[in-house]
């Protein structure tokens, strides 16, 4: 397998394990989208389809080609397989894919996550993952209430959550994440409390909990539009409060609007021990390759997105073309504005040094008015080292983001 020679494209920003910004010769973060689902969930706007015929085979082959194209510019420190339902790929395809990654010298990441649906976790897959260096599994639980699982269109049951949990632990995974959703239509505070209690009792290292988003083109959005239910902001707030409290009591440290992780070791570290470094890189504006149908890459300031159609994606790569269908290169200030806007989602906010290292701009100077505006409203606070949102400000991260963005002039 010949790795295509690559002209040196210059350094790309990346994220160190402590969350700080660094520039490195190659891209250090890799996302792979596995676009298959056994069944589309009611809330989901990600691209996925029900696999048919040899589509999975073709996909793995095409993905292999895409990996080949970027391998020379990629030395992953974090890898994240998301979906869709990555765990839906059959064992032999996984094996083929991981072997190829190995040949391309793409394995060995410090953090290697695969998203799994509790219904599709098997002991042999778990073992295979372990064998190839996967050290983190994100389990898409969403809820532990049977009725709500049904409501959301999830294919798994409560029981399967606990079973897959056991399977993963048995396979030696010491780094597990649970995805939970709240403010689901029909979810009461009591139901949410029960789910939280049970989930926390499992003792995962990481917790991603987020409010239902009503994205256009989802059945849930259509139902909302049709007036089948109403959004209760007060209830959502109560659930979020409950979450913050319960997570803290269970020893989790919140490090982003919707993310919590366990921490061991010295108390004052920038990130909790088990924070997901891959996601931190997104909020820090680092470069990453995103492969697979519909996946987004952000490499050296250029954002591209692959075709959101598996057949088109495969066809492009089979004929030696890239599957890119969208490209965006913002001017420097707009790019920096974006980094400012999304970086403040992290509890730590933006250390000024990191921001300048990433963007070349001084957050204190270029955004002085906006920072003051946020501080004046009790939404932000400035220390000599960093700007961060307050506890209340984190709930208005969108408002802060809106202020911090520097829209590009129309082209």
């Amino acid at each position: 397998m010949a790795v295509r020679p690559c002209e040196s494209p210059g350094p790309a920003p990346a994220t160190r394990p402590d969350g700080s910004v660094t520039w490195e010769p190659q891209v250090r973060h890799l996302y792979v989208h596995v676009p298959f689902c056994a069944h589309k969930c009611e809330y989901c706007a990600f691209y996925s389809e029900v696999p048919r015929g040899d589509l999975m085979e073709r996909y793995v082959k095409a993905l292999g080609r895409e990996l080949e194209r970027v391998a020379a510019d990629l030395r992953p420190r974090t890898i994240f397989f998301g979906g869709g339902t990555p765990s839906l790929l059959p064992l032999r395809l996984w094996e083929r894919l991981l072997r190829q990654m190995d040949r391309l010298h793409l394995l060995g990441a410090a953090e290697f996550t695969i998203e799994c649906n509790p219904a599709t976790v098997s002991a042999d897959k778990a073992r295979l993952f372990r064998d190839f260096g996967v050290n983190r599994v994100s389990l898409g639980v969403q809820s532990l209430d049977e009725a709500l699982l049904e409501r959301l269109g999830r294919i798994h049951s409560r029981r399967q959550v606990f079973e897959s949990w056991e399977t993963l632990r048995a396979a030696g995974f010491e780094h597990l994440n649970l995805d939970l959703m709240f403010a689901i239509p029909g979810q009461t505070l009591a139901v949410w409390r029960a789910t939280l209690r049970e989930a926390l009792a499992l003792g995962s290292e990481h917790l991603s909990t987020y409010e239902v988003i009503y994205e256009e083109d989802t059945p849930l959005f259509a139902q909302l539009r049709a007036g089948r239910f109403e959004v209760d902001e007060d209830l959502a707030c109560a659930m979020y409060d409950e979450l913050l409290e319960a997570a803290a009591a269970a020893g989790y440290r919140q490090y982003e609007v919707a993310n919590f992780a366990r921490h061991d070791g010295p108390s004052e570290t920038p990130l909790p021990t088990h924070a997901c470094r891959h996601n931190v890189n997104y909020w820090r504006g680092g470069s990453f390759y995103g492969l697979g149908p519909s996946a987004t890459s952000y490499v050296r300031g250029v954002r591209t997105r692959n075709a959101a159609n598996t057949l088109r994606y495969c066809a492009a790569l089979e004929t030696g073309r890239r599957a890119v269908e969208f490209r965006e290169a913002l001017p420097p200030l707009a790019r920096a504005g974006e980094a400012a806007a999304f970086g403040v989602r992290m509890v730590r906010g933006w250390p000024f040094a990191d921001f300048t290292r990433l963007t070349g701009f001084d957050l204190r100077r270029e955004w002085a008015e906006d920072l003051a505006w946020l501080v004046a409203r009790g939404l932000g606070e400035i220390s000599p080292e960093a700007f961060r949102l307050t506890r209340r400000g984190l709930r208005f991260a969108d408002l802060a983001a809106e202020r911090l963005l520097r829209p590009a002039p129309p082209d």
Partner: protein
Amino acid sequence: MDVAHIRNFSIIAHIDHGKTTLSDRLLHRTGTISDREMQEQLLDSMDLERERGITIKAHPVTMHYRAKHGETYELNLIDTPGHVDFSYEVSRSLSACEGALLVVDAAQGVEAQTVANVHLAMRQNLTIIPVINKIDLPHANVDLVKTQLEDILAIPADTAILASAKEGIGIDEILEAIVHRIPPPKPTGAPSLQALCFDSYFDTYKGVVTHVRVFNGEVRPGMLVKLLHTGKTYEVKEVGSFNPKPYVRDRLEVGETGYLTANIKSPKEVKMGDTFTDAKHPSPALPGFQEVHPMVFSGLYPINTADYEHLKANLAKLQLNDPAFVYTPESSVALGFGFRCGFLGLLHLEIVQERLRRHYGMDIIATYPSVVYRVKLTDGTIKEVDNPAYLPEPTSIDHIEEPIVKAYIICPNEYIGDMMALISEKRGVLDHTETLDTRRVMLTATLPLNEILIDFHDRIKSLTHGYGSMDYEHAGYQVSDMVKLEMLVNGEPVDAFSCIVHRDKAEARGRALAAKLKEVIPRQQFAVAIQAAIGGKIIARETVSAFRKDVTAKCYGGDITRKRKLLEKQKEGKKRMKSIGSVDIPQEAFIEVLKA
């Protein structure tokens, strides 16, 4: 034409009682318009004015009629605005006449507008020829209408002519009555020309074309004439009449009606009711001249701020043919740049707005209309205030007077209770009640103009299921306990919603406005207090509760572009908002409230 063979007359009628059809029929019978033109006229589509039964502008039309006894007469039909908003204009038009046809619908009988117009005509000492029209209708009740004529209007019933303009019945009798009953014009005996201006329109080529009635002397092209109230002198360029199209004549003689042009550039120079006289040998002015003052004011703003210049140009165009309409630039924190506009009355306001919307396709918003208050200050001076923003501090006010009207309301008997309740709700005083016939009554009431600005007419219509009618005439001023109601958003007054109201009404209005504002002000990151206040005292309060969060959802690498675009759009949207007391309010919210 010698004076003895000239007749000047108007037609007065309630909406839809057949004024237009009768005019057309008279023009047709006298051969002024052809059969074909008659057809076209009758089929004429309903435009804005016809729809509302209000002709603001129509040319005086000259007809030649050969009477039964063989002599030919020049009959000048002078149109009047059909609504008492234009009562001064109506009175000027009427004063150009010696008589009037009073048209009453045989099925509907005397209506409120009929009463108001007849009063105006009587004040001008016109000979009134009652015409009971539409006698061919199955529901026609001629006897009842006759009784009403006598009882309500004190017009002898036996003088009424029975007609159907639509069917051509009674037209000859009407023409004969015009000749025989209406007196010929009488020269005033002044030493020279006296010509009354009773209307004008603007012609791009000729300048202002003035409608005149010659009361004394004659007017020819080349003559130097002077407008007595402005003192300006002009050389007459052209005189003529309408048949109904304008035609040039060599002169207009005493008693005649027509138009004159004299290179007058601005319609503002020609005031309704002014007198043209011979500049070299001036005669005194004809009686009855008044400066017209707008009675109702409202701010007009373009909904799209970029349309400001466009609106300005259109207002200027409107004013060319409607000098009673006035406007000056003003600005509002909430609505941006616009114009303070003055109108003769409610209907005038509506017409101007409708014209801007329909004829000029403008998207405009009007602020809450205000009447003109007379504010007597403690230092004894009197200040006229038409904009709440300029109301002096309460401490420097001795008292405030507000304009009042005399309103005529005619409705079926069973609604008399509703009408009385409505009048009292509107701070009115019922002066008297008259029975019109077995079914209907007429209520005469004195009401503050400010109270009938908004929904009075609509309320009458809806309370009486469409059977009630209302008209009014201005009736001076009265002292009232008026206060300035301010709406505050987080402590900051919102100028567009300030208004001058009676103290008894302030609380209810304040509460209603606060409730409405609560509906339209978007939630913010903090609670927003909406208050209604009189002189600093809060009389109503609503709170828009704060957003408790705007995000608790996830956002990863693939979401960023989409999310960024969404936020940029929101940011862009906020730029268009007005910030009042640090509360971001979209302009649409103000418009929502003003429309309600």
